[in-house]
C-alpha cells in the first residue's frame, strides 16, 4: 500500500491539528514565541546576567549598554534580568489562573450542561451574576479582599474569568450530549461521570482549548493590571505590570523603564492571540477533510 496514505491514516487527532497548524505561519510564529518564553521562564536563573534584585547604585537610569543590554531602572537593577525573571511570574500567573478558571468553570459548566434542569439554572444564574460585574473590577475586588501576593493574584484572575469557561463548556456539553454516541454509551452501561469525562469532554475540547489559549493572554494582562495598581506582585520581585507601574513616574526622562516591560507584555499577548486564532482554525471541524 502507498506509504503516504498509510502515514495519513495513522495520524491521531492531535497530529492532525499540528499538521493543520503548520499551514498558518502566524500561528506557528506565536507557538514559537510561547515556547521561547516558557524556556526563558524555566531557565531564568541561568539566562539572566544579574539577579533581579541586585542594585547597581552607580548605574541608575542607564540606557542600554554592553553591561546592561536593556539598561537599568531607578535602583540600578538590570532591566533584562528583571524581564527574564518577570516572564516566570507572568507565565505562571497566566497558566495557573487559566487552569483555576478552566477547572472550576469547566466542572460547573459540564455538570450544568449535562444534568440541565434546576441544577443548570442554579449554577448558571450564579455565573450570570459574576458575569454582570466587569471582569477587571471583579478581579480587583477579589485581589483587594484576599490581599496582595502571587497566589491570591492567581485566584483573583482565575475566579474572575471562571464564568466564561463555565459558559463555553456548558454549551459544548449541551451540543454533544444529544448525540447518538452518548446514547450508545448509556446503552452499554456507562455511568454519568464516565460519560461526561470520557465521552463528552474529549469531544468538546476544541472551543475550550481556543478559549484557554486566548485566556492566558488575558490573564497575563489582567495580572499586569492588578500589579500596576499595587494589588499583585510586591516589590522587589519583578512582574511586568509592576515594572511598568514602577517606571511610570520616570516615563518622560527615562522611557526605557516602561518601554521594555510594555513590549514584553505586548509580544506575549500577541503571540498567544496568534496561536489561539490558529488553533481555532486548526480545530474547526468544518475544515476537516
Amino acid at each position: 500500500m502507498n506509504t503516504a496514505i498509510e502515514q495519513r491514516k495513522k495520524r491521531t487527532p492531535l497530529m492532525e491539528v499540528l499538521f493543520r497548524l503548520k499551514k498558518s505561519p502566524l500561528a506557528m510564529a506565536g507557538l514559537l514565541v510561547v515556547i521561547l518564553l516558557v524556556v526563558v521562564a524555566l531557565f531564568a536563573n541561568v539566562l539572566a546576567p544579574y539577579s533581579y534584585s541586585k542594585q547597581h547604585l552607580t548605574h541608575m537610569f542607564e540606557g542600554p549598554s554592553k553591561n546592561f543590554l536593556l539598561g537599568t531602572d531607578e535602583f540600578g537593577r538590570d532591566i533584562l534580568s528583571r524581564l527574564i525573571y518577570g516572564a516566570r511570574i507572568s507565565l505562571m500567573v497566566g497558566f495557573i489562573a487559566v487552569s483555576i478558571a478552566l477547572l472550576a468553570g469547566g466542572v460547573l459548566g459540564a455538570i450544568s450542561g449535562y444534568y440541565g434542569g434546576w441544577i443548570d439554572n442554579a449554577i448558571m444564574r450564579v455565573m450570570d451574576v459574576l458575569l454582570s460585574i466587569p471582569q477587571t473590577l471583579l478581579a480587583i475586588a477579589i485581589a483587594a479582599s484576599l490581599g496582595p501576593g502571587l497566589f491570591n493574584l492567581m485566584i483573583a484572575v482565575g475566579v474572575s474569568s471562571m464564568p466564561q469557561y463555565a459558559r463555553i463548556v456548558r454549551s459544548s456539553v449541551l451540543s454533544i450530549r444529544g448525540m447518538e454516541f452518548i446514547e450508545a454509551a448509556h446503552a452499554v452501561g456507562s455511568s454519568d461521570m464516565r460519560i461526561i469525562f470520557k465521552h463528552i469532554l474529549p469531544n468538546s475540547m476544541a472551543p475550550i482549548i481556543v478559549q484557554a489559549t486566548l485566556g492566558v493572554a488575558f490573564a497575563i494582562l489582567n495580572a499586569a493590571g492588578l500589579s500596576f495598581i499595587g494589588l499583585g506582585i510586591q516589590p522587589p520581585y519583578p512582574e511586568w505590570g509592576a515594572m511598568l507601574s514602577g517606571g511610570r513616574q520616570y516615563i518622560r526622562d527615562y522611557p526605557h523603564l516602561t518601554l521594555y516591560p510594555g513590549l514584553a507584555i505586548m509580544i506575549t499577548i500577541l503571540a498567544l492571540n496568534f496561536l489561539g486564532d490558529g488553533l481555532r482554525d486548526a480545530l474547526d471541524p468544518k475544515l476537516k477533510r
Partner: protein
Amino acid sequence: MKPTAKNDRIPAPEERLLLEIRDLVIHYETDDGTVHAVENLDLRLRRGETLGFVGETGAGKTTTALGIMRLIPSPPGVIKSGKILFEGEDLLEKSEAEMRAIRGDKIAMIFQDPMTSLNPVMTMGKQIAEVVRLHRKVSEKEALAIAGDMLELVGIPRERIHEYPHQFSGGMKQRVVIAIALVCDPSLLIADEPTTALDVTIQAQVLNLMKKLKQQFSASMILITHDMGIVADICDTVAIMYAGRVVEYADKASLFTCPVHPYTVGLFDSVPDLEDDKEELNVIPGLMPDPMDLPQGCTFHPRCRFAVETCRLEKPAMKEVAPGHFVACPVRAKMLREHPEQNAGNEGEN
C-alpha cells in the same frame, strides 16, 4: 408451540421465555400535553427468537426499545405502568446501578445511524474494549485483545483497531457497532433500524452478518424496522405496532400469508408489486393519529374500512385467531371465523 385458548393476553410457554412485556404504558409529558407514545403494550420474546417490530415512524417502536433499556429520556418521558420481565425479573423495579450492569452485558442495543453512534475521538479498539472493561474484570490489554477478536469476527482486519471512526466507511462502522453490542455475549439484542442509514448492498451484508452472529452467540433479537423485506428475511415472529400498541402478533409465516388486522392488510397492500403496472400505490387513507390526542376505542378506527360502532367505543383486546396468531381487532377476527375461506387461498403457501 402450545397455545392456551381463551386468554386475551398473549399466553406464554414460560420455560423458553426471555422477555415479556405486560401492559406497558409510556408517556412523554410535555408542556403542550401528554404524548401517549406506548399504550398498554404486550409483547413476548422466546430465547433464540428474532422478533420483527414493524410500524410507522412515531408508532412507539423506539420508545418501547428504550423502555426495555430503561433509557427513556426523563423528563419528559415517564414509564407509567406495566412490567418488563427479562429472564423472569422486572426491569422496571431495578435500580439504576443494576440497570447499568445489565445494559451492554445482557441487553445490548444497535443504533440506527452508525455515523453518529461511535465516539469520534476514540479509537475503535478502545470503544469495544471499554464495554468489555465495564462488565468483565479484565486488564486493558486483555480487553483490547478481545476487541481485536471481535473486529475480525465482524470482518474487519485486526490492524485497524487503532483507527478512528472517521477512517471507516458507514458499513464498517455499523459492523463495529455490532461488535460492541455482541462483545459481552448478550442474551437480548435490540437493533433499532440497523440498516436504515446504509445503502442497499451494504444493508444486505450487515443483515447477513447480524443473522449469522445472532445464531453464533445464541442471542435473541428485537429488530425494529419498517421494511417488510427485512422482516421476511430474518425474523421468526412479527409484531405490528400502531399508535403505541401492538395490533397484530404472529409468526412470520402466518402473518405474511394471512394478515388479519386491517392495518397489517393495509401495510401489505401498500407494498408495490413488481408485476402489476399501476400508476398509484395503494395507501391507507388518512394519517396516524396525533399521539397527544388518540381517538377513543380502537386507535385505528378512523382509517379503517371495517370499522363498526363498537370500534369507536371499546379498546379491542388481543385475541388469538389461530395458534400463536394474535390480533387486536374483534371485527376482523369474527369475519375470519365466519368466513374462513376469505384467507384460505393463501394458506396453501404456509
